[in-house]
């Protein structure tokens, strides 16, 4: 079974935000929620780089460790998902996530208690694959359809790669051999220490 991973090549990202738009459209994400975002560092200055950031589906995911109601689970493909039935919107996972992935809709009586929403690697949630209930709560389950996340599929420069971690890292390795290390694959080492499974 492949271990799914994201990789963002900061040398290639052109800050077009197609990944953000693709994600919102494919999963019908409500206004105010961005499962994926593009962050630019040194904007307008020498060394400017952009990176596309969302849940990295970490090997040893800190969100899973800190959740007081154990609403997270990891699929056998390594994708970190959660149950919105169990989530109590406490916000602990945001406080623990290095990538700022968890998002909370501002619809509660006291804003911070909406159910958490985050990137699912286009793999839905605990409901039946491709059911209406799954789509309503978590968005599209492209993995169950044999497809990869649309954010990476839409990336025009292939800065954002998604798929089997071994394949993704091999593509990146070939780029490094050809061009040099550059600014690196931001977050890869943090999300998958030691190339973890």
């Amino acid at each position, binding site marked *: 079974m492949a271990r799914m991973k994201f990789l963002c090549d900061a040398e290639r990202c052109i800050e077009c935000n197609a990944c953000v738009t693709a994600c919102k459209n494919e999963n019908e994400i409500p206004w105010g929620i961005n499962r994926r975002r593009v962050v630019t560092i040194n904007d307008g200055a020498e060394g400017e780089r952009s990176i596309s950031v969302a849940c990295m589906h970490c090997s040893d995911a800190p969100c899973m460790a800190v959740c007081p109601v154990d609403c997270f689970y990891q699929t056998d493909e390594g994708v970190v998902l959660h149950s919105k039935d169990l989530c109590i919107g406490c916000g602990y996972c945001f406080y623990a996530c290095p990538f700022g992935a968890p998002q909370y809709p501002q619809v509660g009586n006291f804003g911070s208690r909406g159910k958490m929403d985050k990137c699912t690697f286009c793999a839905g949630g605990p409901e039946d694959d491709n059911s209406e209930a799954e789509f309503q709560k978590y968005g599209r389950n492209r993995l169950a359809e044999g497809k990869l996340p649309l954010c990476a599929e839409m990336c025009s420069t292939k800065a954002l790669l998604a798929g089997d971690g071994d394949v993704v890292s091999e593509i990146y390795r070939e780029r490094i051999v050809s061009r040099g290390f550059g600014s690196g694959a931001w977050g890869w080492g*943090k999300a998958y220490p030691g190339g973890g499974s």
Partner: protein
Amino acid sequence: MLVAKSMPNLTKRVLPVLIACLAAGLCSVAAADDAASSMPETLEGHGGPVRSVAIAADNTHVLTSSFDYSAIYWLLEAQKGRELMRLEGHDAAVNDAAFVPGGDIAVTASDDGSVAVWNLDTGEMLKRFQGPGDKVLAVDVSGDGRYAASAGWDRRVRLYDLKALEEVAAFEGHRGNVNDVAFSPDGKTLYSASYDGTIHSWDVEERKPGRPIYSHGWGLNIVRALPDGKALLFGSLDGSAGVVDIESGNVLVDLAVHKGPILSADIAADAGMALVGGADGVVRVYRMADWILLHTFENPNGPIWGASLAADGTAAMLAGLDDAAFLWQISPRKSFEPPLGEFPRRFQVSSDAGPGELQFARKCSVCHTLTKDGANRAGPSLHGVFGRKAGTLEGYVYSDALKNSDIVWNEETIARLFDDGPDVVTPGSKMPVQRLKSVEDRDALIAFLKRATDPAASSVSQ
């Protein structure tokens, strides 16, 4: 395709404890005059996970705050913790609580966006500073008790004059959520740590921005001012912790890296010790003179959300995912015996529960009981809820919205609550968003509640 995460088994939980016990030369008894001898093993009374813990300077009292919307003021005597006062009045989880030196006053910060000042003699809320609504994650109080400061997810650091009970400044400058604040030992400077990865200073007396002190890259959860006034202790989302020089911004010491974000820290100035706790459940205690690692402890039940060192450094109270704070006796070292049984995440239920009971367990039980005893959970007991006017259960602190509501709970009104959501049916109440889109699930829940909350019937265990 999906595989549920396996629960840690008993061996995995108990083994670190056994190792710690053996490493410490087995358990020994604390001397009679140190803090460890007066501390209770646990502080039990909250109805939700404990988020923060603070031991008073004289080791006689403790403040805890919790997801259950309350803080508790405890008296420690003869290794027992007696609940002196429950501080109720916030409308959401209480994230932090701090003593004000020189008076029976406490300050709390909450998910409801407010900071509250409490009289610990009477339990009265003296003042509530209501911000724009974003979470307030942390509070700190200056050493002279004059000022309090808060870290808010509205990206602001707020300063409060505790004598005048006024908000006197709202500092802007961070580009992300502010996660922590700390006063300098002389109280003249305030330091803040943010998700934007920086530590910033603020001038308390002039009430104006100071300067950026340090940029870490990864988000910062923790900042503490060291007693010499020259350096800061920080903890990051990437698991790193260290000491940074205030003047130069250079990292002076890299502390041991945790296998998860740093979530808590404390300093015992007189004892010359500092404590760092992480999401990996590991707590490390360092000697500040040379930053030698003195003690390591691993909580088998997971993350360390809150930690407080006794002034003499012989003990610490820790808070994690459980509804209680617990003691770690550091010196002389004593093993921590975790309660046997289920991992402290109790809202997963077996699939053999009926559909209505399943809905209750998953969506309601974190805040409500079905028995007369409300168990100090965030919401009122549902015992006898059918036929009850909203906002009338004695002993529960309701919002004004529910106190002034004309709703009487029955099948129809409860169905409406879950059809449209509490934000529509009971706007301004403390209940978080909870909707049931499936009519079958809703009807099953109502049928279960009708049966399980009937005072005439035997209660259902939860």
